[in-house]
């Protein structure tokens, strides 16, 4: 097991490095930097002015070097400014390099830079926003996973029955409803003055401090709906397949009652596939989070991503990317390990 974890970890690290490099490269493209210069400095700068503005702030050097600095494996730049002061990545603008300034300051050192939009350290922003999204995700999971598994198991245990057809239709409908559609429908029905059912609130801004059923249920349901159908269908397919297996017939012909055939013999085998799916679903949930947080104005991690991207806030966008990539990779790792744990046929020695 140790060896396996180590290898998966190595692959994960390589993936994370590749992905962050791609993000870094895409955010540091010339047109993006030009935009930064013009928004931060002066909108009417000429091209040479833009170039020198960028060069003075360390943007002028080659991509790998900048990436190394951002990562914290290369020492941060120190550039002498035209006005004689010194500007460094790790200490900002000063007359001379402060003696206590560290040589390297990047992600590895915990220095994630400063957001240009929020004027705050990126690390702090991400921490608070992530906590808010964590709250949202927790309730989504609490609602989605048991519902999806129940629907899937009930539908799959008697394939082709009416229960199956009814539940399968529900799950197909839910997979066909992306968050921005179900959100619109739910708000129209339950929160708009047009219909009159003003049971819930159409915005979740107040849920950031104080989540109640009234302000939090709609966003949670909106995310859960889309993911639920998919997991339910996977569970159903897996369950239906297991119920066809010879060993289920063996159990039935041993005289095991149907309920125990399902619970004791089928369930564990049938849940191996959905478990992987649930874990791999988390990156998709991230999509839903971005849409729902935008739609319901819930200022969490997804909302931050949109803000960072649309305002060309490079440092923040990089931070957000790192976190989301790491989240995705971690879920993949958990899914692999869980698969091995659940499936006795695969032994890792």
């Amino acid at each position, binding site marked *: 097991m140790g060896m396996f974890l180590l290898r998966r970890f190595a692959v994960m690290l390589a993936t994370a490095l590749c992905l962050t490099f791609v993000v870094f490269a895409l955010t540091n493209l010339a047109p993006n930097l030009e935009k930064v210069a013009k928004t931060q400095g002066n909108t009417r700068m000429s091209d040479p002015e833009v170039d020198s503005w960028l060069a003075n702030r360390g943007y002028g050097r080659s991509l790998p070097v900048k990436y190394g600095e951002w990562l914290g494996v290369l020492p941060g730049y120190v550039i002498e400014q035209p006005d004689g002061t010194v500007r460094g990545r790790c200490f900002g603008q000063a007359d001379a390099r402060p003696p206590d300034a560290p040589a390297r300051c990047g992600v590895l050192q915990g220095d994630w830079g400063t957001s240009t939009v929020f004027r705050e350290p990126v690390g702090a922003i991400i921490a608070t926003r992530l906590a808010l999204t964590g709250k949202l995700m927790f309730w989504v999971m609490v609602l989605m996973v048991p519902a999806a598994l129940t629907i899937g198991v009930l539908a799959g245990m008697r394939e082709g029955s009416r229960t199956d057809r009814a539940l399968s239709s529900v799950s197909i409908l839910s997979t066909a409803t992306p968050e921005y559609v179900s959100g619109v429908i739910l708000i129209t029905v339950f929160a708009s003055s047009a219909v009159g059912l003003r049971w819930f609130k159409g915005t979740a801004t107040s849920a950031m401090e104080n989540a109640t059923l009234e302000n939090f249920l709609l966003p949670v349901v909106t995310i859960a709906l889309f993911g639920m159908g998919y997991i339910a269908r996977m569970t159903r397919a897996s369950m239906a397949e297991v119920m066809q297996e010879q*060993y289920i017939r063996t159990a039935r012909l041993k005289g095991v009652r149907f309920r125990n055939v399902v619970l004791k013999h089928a369930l564990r*085998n049938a849940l191996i596939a959905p478990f992987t799916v649930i874990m791999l679903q988390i990156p998709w949930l991230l999509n839903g989070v971005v849409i729902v947080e935008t739609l319901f104005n819930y200022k969490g991690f997804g909302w931050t991503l949109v803000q960072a991207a649309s305002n060309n806030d490079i440092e923040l966008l990089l931070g957000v990317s790192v976190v989301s990539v790491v989240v995705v990779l971690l879920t993949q790792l958990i899914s692999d390990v869980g698969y091995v744990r659940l499936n006795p046929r*695969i032994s890792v020695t």
Partner: protein
Amino acid sequence: MTDQEPPILEIEDLSISFFTRDREIPAVMDFSCRVLPGEAMGLVGESGCGKSTVALGVMRDLGRSGRITGGRIRFKGRDMADLNDRALRDLRGRDIAMIYQEPMASLNPAMRVGKQLTEVPVIHEGIAESEARTRALEVLADVQLPDPERILRAYPHQLSGGQQQRIVIAMALMANPSLLILDEPTTALDVTVEAAVVDLVKDLGRKYGTSMLFISHNLGLVLETCDRICVMYSGEAVETGDIGDVFDRMRHPYTQALFRSIPLPGADKHAKPLVAIPGNFPLPHERPPGCNFGPRCDYFEAGRCDARAIPMRPVAGDDRHRSRCLRFDDIDWSRMALGGVDATRTDPGEVILRVEDLQKHYEVGASALFRGGETRVVKANESLTFDAREAETLAIVGESGCGKSTFAKVLLGLETATGGEVILDNRPIGDTPIQRRETATIADVQMVFQNPFDTLNPSMTIGRQIMRALEIFKVGGSEAARRERMLDLLDLVKLPREFADRMPRQLSGGQKQRVGIARAFAGGARIVVADEPVSALDVSVQAAVADLLMEIQRTQKTTLLFISHDLSIVRYLSDRVLVMYLGHVVEIGDTSDVFSPPYHPYTEALLSAVPIADTRVTKKSIVLEGDVPSAMDPPPGCPFQTRCHWKSQVPGDLCETKVPEMVRFGPEGRHQIKCHLTRETLEAMEPVITLAAE
């Protein structure tokens, strides 16, 4: 066995149908049989004849689409139709237990063996887990599994196929049922393992006094295990009776035709070839009126046999012997002789293929999913040496994992040899992968595959597939010429020319196999490797396909390398036999020499293991212990030493330390045995199979 004892199981006029959206498909019609206490009833028939449906009908487990449409099943006098769900559950597992074909599939992969075993008495008798565990240990000892404690803690995938089947048997015996239904219980197992399992089932049946319903397509196996037999054809029982009566005084043309199409001792491809049953098995919704077997029957009488449904009639003079034939009193049953078609014998010609010290090792990662750690070496072939002549049939015999398929891959160029040489016409080809072989060499060495349902590309017409082979082998200058040649090939394998435009799914298994043969001979192959070409076919079709192969071989003077584990067909077809075990040739020689003493101990065990459907045969019983060792971790010394029961006759630790040399017998030393036993011991061996004089 008299009528005073009430039967355990009594089936009367049972009919079972499956309902699809379009139509009703009758699977079993008008089926009756009785199983008395302690009796073993064999249910024999080809695939699709409804024998497994009968078993599931008894268990009342026909799924959503299956229904009993007529008749009744009585178990110990109780009508099963009256049982509600709960009563049925109580019956299943406690009174009637069932064992199926695939042991691995029958065991829950995510549940420990112990739990699966103890579940049975816990459900039915409500006893404590610990008590059930003690019972499980006893039963495991009964099925002769070593180290029962460890096995109870194991998951099914940690056990070998033979062990798994023993677990399944143990599970069936946990509640000491009065009826055991076995549905092809040994089909997935190797011959020697099969023999051991069959022995075990027989002994346990006797010990526990269990009645058995034994379902099989193998007449020999039924002869060895059962007291009574019921032959089924296309949903109906056609003949039933005591095993001796049915085997020796059969009274139904289908039974007779079956016996004439399986290779029994005495059949000879030159003098007494098998007689295949003409035509095809009728589809369930296209059954003929009257006698189902009518269209394929030699004794068919129009206007009588196809007039109305035919009932079972008792055969006078025999006990409970019945037949579903109107004409059995008219037929002269003594005329049972095999066909005497004149087949000119072709003598083997020059040596065209020589294999010298061929060695093939594979490196495999510890596991595909988690690469890393050290790679392990599979020693699939170790020092194979033999040669093959033109127009000769050389059978390669061995159980799964013996390396026969690997050898085929090396010969065909799909793999290259690790050591040694394969020489075709004095040209070495062992190191030449297929991409670097000349077209002529590729066309010379071709293959016929085992599984007819897998051998043809499902999305290409038959004609297109054969023509593609012609294109690749550069036969024929134009599209028209190739089409002509393709039609000739269809003639050669006796398929109608219209089949050229059919898709593979429109063909039966035997027809597909014929297409596979046509494709192999497209480039005028001189060596054809036939990997179990008939083992997946039904008995009645096997003979026809085997004879076709022989006939083409005779006319084309092809060298046939016939890979098989079925010694009956090997004896019938081949000129010479090569026995393989764990990558070694352990015995090679002319067919008659290999089938009579002296034997290699492994050949001896193999011969003893093969069930023969002939009441005149007596066999020496040799049951091998354990399973074939893994080729990844072969035993040191003689490969067979872990299972050999002659080992005590060899002094010292010779068997464990040294691979034996070939001992040569006969003129020119044509019969060779790789064994440490002395020549005298080998020569003093007794024959395994003896045929009682008539």
